[in-house]
């Protein structure tokens, strides 16, 4: 499902003395099947933008086109129900949204609300619990007896149960330890490929954006500051620094090395592996000259 923002503006508390413009002149397209990272400093409009993706917020002017649906300021909320099924949002700390007696009931809650027969919802739950990396015997447990990381996986299974075509992730690894963070990010990447999802990741981690995203959208003070591949977006570290963002550590190292050694490193150095390889080649070349 392609997503297109056209001249989107969002003003909170419009027509009141407390009016505050959170988004303006947002024109951006997310193509179907892409993995897109949205980065930006706190208060840059990332979260407001994200809530437009399934109609939780409607633009105060402009339009958001999601597949066949168009959301404008006068669309009735009732008409947005089919959209809510197609776009799944995993909010920050999704485990806070668990409420049922058992894990199975919690995962089935969404599908049952959308009229899926109980047997099918339960079958779905069994499949999903494995997909998020938990064993089937978790299904009969209370979600509140699980560890934080397990609870988060259950909540994510609940979002996936609606079989969304677009998966929106808002800082999905906040509060996890490094291993938990890596496992979670690898899981989303696997889902992205296996289910051919369009994935939108809101993150503070430039490392994750560089490693997983096809494209990066940089938000700044309520509008799109830049949009391109990770290589393009991380080319100018000084410009990013001016809006309070940094480049990944690997890119920082590459740029410092190029300056100190007076060489050009052709690799974009977006991951640790790429960077190790690039430095190895640099040294191999010198040895070959001898």
């Amino acid at each position, binding site marked *: 499902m392609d997503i297109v923002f056209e001249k989107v503006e969002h003003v909170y508390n419009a027509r009141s003395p407390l009016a505050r413009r959170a988004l303006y002149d947002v024109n951006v397209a997310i193509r179907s099947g892409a993995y897109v990272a949205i980065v930006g400093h706190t208060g840059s409009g990332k979260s407001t933008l994200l809530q437009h993706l399934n109609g939780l917020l409607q633009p105060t002017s402009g339009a958001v086109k999601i597949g066949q649906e168009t959301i404008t300021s006068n669309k009735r909320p009732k008409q947005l129900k089919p959209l809510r099924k197609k776009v799944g949002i995993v909010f920050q700390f999704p485990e806070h949204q668990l409420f049922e007696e058992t894990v199975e009931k919690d995962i089935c809650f969404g599908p049952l609300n959308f009229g899926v027969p109980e047997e099918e919802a339960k079958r779905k739950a069994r499949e999903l619990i494995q997909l998020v990396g938990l064993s089937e015997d978790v299904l009969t447990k209370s979600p509140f007896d699980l560890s934080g990381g397990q609870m988060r996986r259950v909540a994510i299974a609940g979002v996936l149960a609606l079989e969304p075509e677009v998966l929106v992730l808002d800082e999905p690894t906040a509060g996890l330890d490094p291993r*938990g963070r890596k496992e979670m990010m690898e899981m989303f990447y696997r889902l992205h490929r296996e289910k051919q999802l369009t994935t939108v990741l809101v993150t503070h981690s430039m490392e994750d954006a560089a490693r997983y995203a096809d494209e990066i959208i940089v938000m700044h003070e309520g509008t799109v500051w830049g949009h391109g591949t990770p290589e393009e977006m991380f080319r100018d570290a000084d410009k990013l620094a001016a809006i309070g963002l940094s480049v990944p550590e690997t890119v920082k190292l590459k740029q410092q090395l190029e300056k100190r*050694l007076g060489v050009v490193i052709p690799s974009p150095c977006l991951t640790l592996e790429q960077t190790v390889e690039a430095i190895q080649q640099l040294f191999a070349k010198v040895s070959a000259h001898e």
Partner: protein
Amino acid sequence: MNWTMPFFCLLFIGRICNAATQGETIMAEPILSIEGVSFRYPNQSDYAVQNVSFIAERGEWLAIVGHNGSGKSTIARMLIGLLRPERGAIRLFGCLLDDTTVWEVRRRVGMVFQNPDNQFVGATVEDDIAFALENNGIPRAEMVERIREAIRQVHMEPFLHHEPHRLSGGQKQRVAIAGILALRPDMIILDEATSMLDPRGREEVLETVRRLNCQQRITVLSITHDLEEAAKADRIIVMNKGEVMAEGAPEHIFRLGSKLERIGLDLPFAVKMGSRLREQGIPLRAGYFTTEELVEELWTLYSKK
């Protein structure tokens, strides 16, 4: 004989501890010592913390690192008497921590928790800092003075009359620290206090803590799974499965390399990069370094070629 010890402490804690705060060397003891402490949560057969011993010196920045569930937060909760050890003893400021000394300890040890939104009570930043002072019966004139001083120390003066919930995460944590500073603590415990912040917020908080540690010699105990943060400490204790796995200066700890990665921690970038390059046959020296130092090392090698 046993019962007299806490009683003794209660009577003399003020005098002994005040002397120690002024930096006199009457007490040669460390500010904190934990001896053979074990703890189990109710209805659990496994120990969350098992036979843990360590000390913290006055003015030191000590980091306790470990993955989620390694027992590090359980230790923090025992230090301020929220949990009680099943075995072993905790001594703070030279006194055994028990029911009679816990209130004095809580006055002198401030804790900053993980979630910046869960620790505010006041409608304004000023009210919030005043809350603990009121509870401790500080006279109004002194309260005003202490609030002013505390807010200045965390560089948040312009926000004194703001509502706490409208601040950024980093600003909230700095206000939480100001609330602690107003009580003139001897020790600050940061329990994953930066893990929910964005990179800028994290830097703000760590910069504040570093300043307090250097200039006022407040003892800092930071509990974290972020080894970049732990790298700033004087000493690191690595926890794994409820036990102390290693202890030492950051450069010493980072030599453990892949052992740390195996227990779910992530090495600081330059350390990780250095060890990967060494594995690929680039003869870098081992040890801890920053990205800048790594670049210099590579430059030296490159120019020798």
